[in-house]
């Protein structure tokens, strides 16, 4: 049985459509990621999944149980970590855990083995009040609390936002560990690089799913060959690449009658471009040299998740 099945989920807040006909399936035991920026609809979708809001349209089931009609049974199966830190700031680490355990009719002892790898990192601070913890420790406590009743599925809303790269890496390692315990994990993140750690991902933007697949297949779905161009003055490189084909016939990239855009996008130390049919990469270098940028380099690269996201966003517009 699938862990999550969503059919045509739509949700509106007044006139604003937060989710627009969203359908997807998460398999049992899968680590499934929703990748998208703020305002994409990730939180609304998760709130529907954890039975906190009723969608305007469509239907969602978790382990065959409907999020609207079977919410009481479902809540025992779900561990939820909201985006905003929602534990009791004025209770200690230990008190928070005991509180959550009691609410779900269990004890810290009973499921200690499950939270141990995570909890033991914050156990030295168990008397400290939650409000006084660092970001990374709060995140670990919240995950421990979400796990305390041994849920079948974890739903984690942007658990790594604002957290540094080291803590983020550690967090994803913890998730891999939980996956091996057989727990299904649905997680959202605005960091595209984290997508690679999921079994499958859904790219979400403006309430719509742009694509669902394994990270590798998502990267392979990029429609063209992609190149990285490098030059010391990145701003000059970007503006030059943008204007190359539009300049008065300086070079053989494309006939001037049909201006072709190279779709230059800045990516860290390089600018990513696509080439028109039949154009050789060396021709770009020659054109750049003519434009006053000698010594630039160009290499073909494997598209990243963010390249695909950009392409899909542009198509959608």
């Amino acid at each position, binding site marked *: 049985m699938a862990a999550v099945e969503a059919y045509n989920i739509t949700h509106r807040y007044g006139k604003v459509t937060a989710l627009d006909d969203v359908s997807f399936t998460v398999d049992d035991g899968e680590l499934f990621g929703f990748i998208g*920026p703020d305002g994409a609809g990730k939180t609304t979708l998760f709130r529907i999944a954890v039975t906190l809001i009723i969608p305007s349209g469509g239907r969602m089931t978790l382990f065959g149980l409907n999020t609207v009609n079977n919410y009481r049974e479902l809540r025992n199966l779900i561990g939820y970590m909201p985006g905003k830190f929602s534990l009791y700031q004025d209770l200690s680490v230990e008190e928070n855990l005991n509180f959550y355990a009691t609410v779900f009719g269990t004890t810290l002892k009973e499921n200690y083995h499950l939270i141990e790898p995570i909890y033991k990192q914050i156990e030295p601070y168990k008397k400290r009040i939650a409000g006084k913890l660092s970001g990374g420790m709060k995140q670990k406590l919240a995950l421990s609390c979400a796990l305390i009743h041994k849920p079948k599925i974890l739903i984690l809303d942007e658990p790594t936002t604002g957290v540094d790269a080291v803590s983020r890496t550690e967090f994803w390692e913890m998730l891999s560990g939980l996956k091996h315990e057989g727990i299904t994990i649905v997680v959202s993140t605005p960091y595209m*690089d984290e997508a690679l750690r999921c079994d499958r991902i859904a790219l979400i933007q403006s309430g719509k799913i742009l694509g669902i697949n394994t990270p590798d297949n998502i990267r392979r779905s990029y429609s063209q060959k992609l190149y990285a161009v490098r030059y010391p003055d990145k701003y000059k490189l970007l503006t030059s690449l943008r204007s190359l084909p539009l300049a008065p016939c300086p070079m053989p990239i494309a006939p001037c009658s049909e201006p072709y855009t190279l779709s230059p996008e800045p990516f*860290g130390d390089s600018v990513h471009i696509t080439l028109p049919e039949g154009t050789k990469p060396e021709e770009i270098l020659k054109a750049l040299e003519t434009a006053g940028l000698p010594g630039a380099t160009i290499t073909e690269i494997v598209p990243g998740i963010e390249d695909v996201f950009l392409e899909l966003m542009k198509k959608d517009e």
Partner: protein
Amino acid sequence: MEREKVIEVKDLVKKFGSFVANDHLTFDVYKGEIFGFLGANGAGKTTAIRILCGLSRPTSGKVLVAGFDANHPEEIKKRIGYMSQRFSLYNDLTVKDNIELYGGIYGMTMKEIRPRTERLLAKLSFNQYGDTLIGSLPPGIKQKLAFAVAVFHDPEIVFLDEPTSGVDPITRRQFWEMIYETASRGITVFVTTHYMDEAEYCDRVTIMNEGMIVALDTPSALREKYNASSIEELFLKIARQKTETA
């Protein structure tokens, strides 16, 4: 070629009680440079930025920002801009009100503010938003406006604290292009980020750990030195190394 320094920091120490938040920091930042300031949570970045912005005094050491030392925080504040992801513009004021407020705070007259506002809105193609409440704008537009407002008074340095957190990939790129453009006008950009790939956009990057600067160079020189394929890999190497020895 001698480059003009806009920030000079020498042996900066900041203690809170017995806790050393900044442990002998020494670095220079040049005019028109995009300077990335990275580090794990709790590494001491915020403490250092607060000192550079004139909001806090160092325990010892020398700090010169736009030519003024830490004893002249008001002079420093006049010459810098600041923007963070958490708080930037007032949601319940319109776009124009926000610009007027910030311009006014930095001592600009309405005569200067008005034409500049028009130019700014035209440049961003945001003319239609002049009288819109900030709170009702999409996050991407808000973010770009916040940056434009932070450099509205032509500061010598602009400090950006995780400016692109959570924005979509298209906006993120437009935002970095605004940063490039600002730096090309000679304004120094001092930026913190948790997106390690963004560090690669910077001219030079510094990595802090446990109150100290553990690496400072151009992204390519750092990758080479630490034999890392990306700044992310390098960051994980350095930070992990430290925690293991701690």
